[in-house]
């Protein structure tokens, strides 16, 4: 199905999740990269050695979440915009997500925006916690949002009012 839709199923995403201990410990990266393509910037950019070295450039990246600090360098460098950082320890009811965003206008910090799923459908509301748009990111800005726990596996984009 994925080859027809381009939308990862819940199973596919859950398989990418790290162990329970890591999820309860703090932030971790999740790479929604399911196809072997010749590409490895996620591995070369990572300073924490959290992306295992590629034997072949076509390998699907493997994240070693033990080492991941949630710095989100991979989020902005990935040409496929397939890297996200999740922090399930953010609060009792909310999960923090860092996602790549290459659109204008940028959301405002503390504003409430639509939380969109992998098909661009509104599945709830997200609060914008941080907007990183420094020059180093080269226009792949990193938006940090918090969303209700129930939808954190679905939310991968945000929608601003005008859209």
């Amino acid at each position: 199905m994925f080859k027809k839709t381009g939308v990862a199923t819940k199973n596919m995403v859950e398989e990418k999740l790290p162990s329970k201990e890591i999820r309860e410990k703090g932030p971790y990266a999740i790479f929604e990269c399911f196809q072997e393509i010749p590409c490895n910037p996620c591995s070369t950019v990572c300073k924490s050695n959290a992306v295992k070295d590629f034997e072949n450039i076509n390998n699907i990246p493997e994240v070693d979440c033990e080492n991941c600090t949630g710095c989100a360098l991979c989020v902005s460098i990935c040409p496929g915009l397939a890297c996200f950082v999740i922090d399930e320890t953010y609060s009792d009811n909310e999960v923090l997500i860092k996602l790549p965003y290459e659109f204008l206008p940028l959301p405002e910090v503390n504003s409430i925006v639509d939380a969109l799923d992998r098909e661009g459908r509104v599945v709830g509301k997200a609060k914008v916690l941080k907007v990183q748009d420094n020059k180093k990111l080269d226009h792949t800005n990193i938006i940090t949002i918090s969303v209700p726990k129930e939808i954190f596996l679905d939310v991968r984009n945000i929608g601003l009012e005008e859209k």
Partner: protein
Amino acid sequence: MLHTEIAIIGGGPAGMCAAIAAAGQGARVTLFDRGKKLGGQLVKQTHRFFGSEKEYAGIRGIDIAKILCDEVEKNKLIDVKTDTTILAIYNDGVITYEEGKNYKRITSEKTIIATGASEKMLLFENNDLPGVYGAGAVQTLMNEHGIVPGNKVLMIGAGNIGLIVSYQLMQAGVKVEAIIDASPNIGGYLVHASKVKRLGVPILTSHTIKRALGKESVEGAVICELDEKWQPVSGTEKELDVDVICLAVGLSPQSELLRHTGCEVKYVPGLGGYVPMRDGNLQTTVNGIYVAGDTAEVEEASSAMVEGTIAGLSAAESLGYGKNISELKKSFISDLDSLRSGAVGEKIRSGIQKLGC
């Protein structure tokens, strides 16, 4: 008459890399491009490239163009001739060209042809209406000249170009009504598909366009579903309200100049059409004529850059330049093999095998 050691035709990613590689070994190079500036199609690629660091992965195409142009310009061994169209290559080494409005001649010892590819057309009713544009044309208008092609777009083709240009259209504030593809599966990288899906753009596989609507220019499109045998399913016709129909249905190698040299070509659909036979040095069946990039086979720009480097090194080596070129070349050949070694490289691997070289 002017003379150069290596003439390189085409200043895109393959040609620029060929020039840098050959001049790096000490050869005198003349780099020709018909455009007003170098860069080829890189100058409108606003997305980050795949590949490894060696091929500038993670950097946007527009910035790779700048890096390569700068390197070409600062190298005194490379003479750049832009706004120059090659007219003919004769077998005594004479190349005739039009520089601006002037007719000129040059002789070269080796020639590398890196003329790229052109967009394919698709057969459907009214496909000649203004408003039916190639995906590259939409990129040129949007990303080079800052002009939107229209308000609502139907994208034909869910390969990498169709997916990438759809994303770029959305970035420019243009609505993409749908991306359709006759194939039952998405042809492009699935990360690109996920990117546009996240924006709410429908991707309809097993769909084709029946006709464009409109008298003077595009006012709509009729699409329909295809069955397993790629035949239209009756009763599935649907009208879309669009003012632009964008075609991203593949590229054909621009092999006119190549064929003009008399080199042997073969029709290999997996490589984009008629492509030249070549050896491991990327030399064609005509002695001294090399090939690199999309002219050799339609592939990603990352591979085109590596091929350009290999062709440039080979041409310089054949003129007696450099030491240990063969070692250096080996490392680039292994990079190219590794880029092509995965599942998505299968088409290229089997295509090159079919060429029998």
